[in-house]
């Protein structure tokens, strides 16, 4: 167990280091600097600013300084809004993204698994067809199209929901829908195909031969085996929803982390780009670990120490 977590920790640190390095140099390759967009900055003022942020030093020196600060968990201050540290921007805005993301994940899993199970139970019937059409639409419509369409239809035309902002619980509906559409579709297809396989398994016949009701058989015996691949998808899904929220937050004017991320790139706000990128990376790695843990919980054959091979 200690070895398992130790190994995980080392790999997380190495990944973060590689990511920080790559992002740093790629970011520096963008033409311009944090102060190019501002009009009429006198050259001497700009030189002072550059010196203040250490941007006049050679790139490798800037890189080493950044790494040194990073080791002390200091992400620096934003170069655009001088009064805010990168950490405070992240803590202030991540709450919105987190809530949005968690709702989207919950909705995706419940609706996706539900659709998949129903489709498998009524294989080749009308319900199956409808569920799969929804799934194809969900996979093929990009979230920004879905976001703007629903915003126009339900927000502007029908006025059921607010067009933008996050003030009440109902304001979550449209952004969550936009974020969850793709994972719902993906999970529905995954669940359907594994459930079809599982429902033909011998142990389902055994369960039936015990005299269990069909509903009990499905919930107790089939579902747990049928959602195994969905558990594997939790990691990539978190990535999808996080990266999706960058665009969706922008469209719905939600002051979440995604919005700051987009802004930071167009402003070349170096410290903020680095900070948010690394933060996203940590979240994704946590999602990975969570997937491993969940997998062990759902499937008893997979233990965290399975490499030792207690039994085959």
């Amino acid at each position, binding site marked *: 167990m200690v070895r398992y977590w130790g190994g995980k920790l080392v790999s997380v640190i190495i990944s973060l280091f590689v990511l920080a390095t790559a992002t740093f140099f790629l970011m520096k390759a963008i033409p311009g600097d944090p102060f190019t967009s501002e009009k009429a900055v006198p050259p001497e003022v700009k030189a002072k600013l550059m010196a203040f942020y250490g941007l006049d030093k050679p790139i490798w020196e800037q890189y080493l300084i950044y790494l040194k600060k990073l080791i002390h968990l200091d992400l620096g201050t934003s170069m655009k809004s001088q009064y805010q540290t990168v950490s405070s921007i992240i803590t202030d805005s991540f709450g919105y993204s987190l809530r949005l993301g968690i709702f989207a994940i919950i909705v995706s899993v419940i609706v996706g698994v539900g659709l998949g199970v129903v489709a498998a139970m009524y294989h080749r019937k009308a319900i199956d067809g409808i569920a799969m059409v929804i799934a194809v639409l969900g996979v093929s419509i990009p979230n920004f199209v879905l976001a703007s369409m629903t915003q126009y239809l339900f927000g502007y035309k029908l006025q059921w929901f607010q067009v933008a902002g996050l003030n009440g619980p109902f304001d979550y509906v449209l952004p969550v829908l936009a974020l969850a559409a793709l994972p719902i579709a993906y999970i529905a297809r995954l669940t359907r195909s594994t459930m079809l396989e599982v429902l033909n*398994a*011998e*142990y389902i*016949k*055994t*369960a*039936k*031969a*015990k*005299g*269990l*009701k*069909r509903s009990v058989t499905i919930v*107790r*015996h089939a579902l*747990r*085996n049928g959602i195994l691949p969905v558990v594997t998808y939790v990691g990539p899904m978190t990535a999808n929803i996080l990266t999706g929220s960058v665009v969706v937050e922008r469209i719905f004017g939600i002051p979440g982390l995604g919005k700051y991320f987009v802004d930071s790139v167009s402003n070349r706000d170096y410290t903020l780009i680095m900070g948010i990128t690394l933060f996203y990376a940590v979240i994704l790695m946590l999602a990975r670990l969570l997937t491993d843990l969940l997998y062990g919980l*759902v*499937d*008893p*054959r997979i233990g965290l120490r399975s490499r030792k091979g207690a*039994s*085959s």
Partner: protein
Amino acid sequence: MDTILRVNDLHVSFRARGGEVQAVRGVNFEVKKGEAVAIVGESGSGKSVTAQSIMRLLPSPPSFVKQGSIEFMGRNLVDATEAEMEAIRGKEIGMIFQDPMTSLNPTMTIGHQITEGLIKHQGMNRSEARERALELLRLVGIPNPEARFGQYPHNFSGGMRQRAMIAIALSCNPALLIADEPTTALDVTIQAQIMQLMKDLQQKFGTSIILITHDLGVVADMCDKVIVMYGGQVVETGTKWDIFAKPQHPYTRGLLRSMPRLDLPKGEPLVPIDGTPPDLLAPPVGCAFCARCEHAMEVCLNHDPELVPVGENGQTAKCWLHHPLAKEVQA
């Protein structure tokens, strides 16, 4: 002895792309209380379909009972409702499947899989069911049941899993146990143990057993009565002594000759049955075995023989050779 199961003229078919696959075509047999009956035949002979029809485990569609009845303790299972079947499955009829590697749920503990039926049918609470499950595990020869109770199927070997399956099937003291090739997927040494266990338990509880197998060797030790199936029909029935000593149908004789025996002289070659089983999408008009039969006559091609009594102990065979006009055949 009371008859607990009577299968009358059972026809089961499957709807398939090319038409109707007639998997079972007019099967008759009965099982008495405490009796062990073997249904023997090669793959595709309809033996498994017959067994699963009794439990109504076949998915419908594509399968359907075309004709006939299955009377189990006075009820016709063919028209029973799904709720009635749920009350019979696991409680009155237990079933053991072929492959213990796949017939247990991999994500559920063995204990939970045994107690499930007890809680449903016997109205036990969790701790009563646990006690009974431990007792069952002990009964089927699983050592250290307390530890095994909470383990998963992947912690069990093949033989142990089949023992656990037997515990599940017998948990509610069913009147009838259907074992569908229970030893086919096991090692030979384990096969003998499992058969011995089933025999012991049958004698202990007086359960009736239908043993489905393609292995005549498995039959000899355990069953009183043997039903030989071919092409979806019963071709011969009799006590195991009669079937082994004086088989009356050419197919049964072929089966016995293709089986290795210790009492035959060394170097005697095994004789396989040439040819392939009939196409059940378009079954032959005459005798189903006709195309592979060494004694086939003209009548066999166009007229299906009846199952007629032969010998003294209620042995029957479905063959024209037993017609008074047929020539005498040396077995």
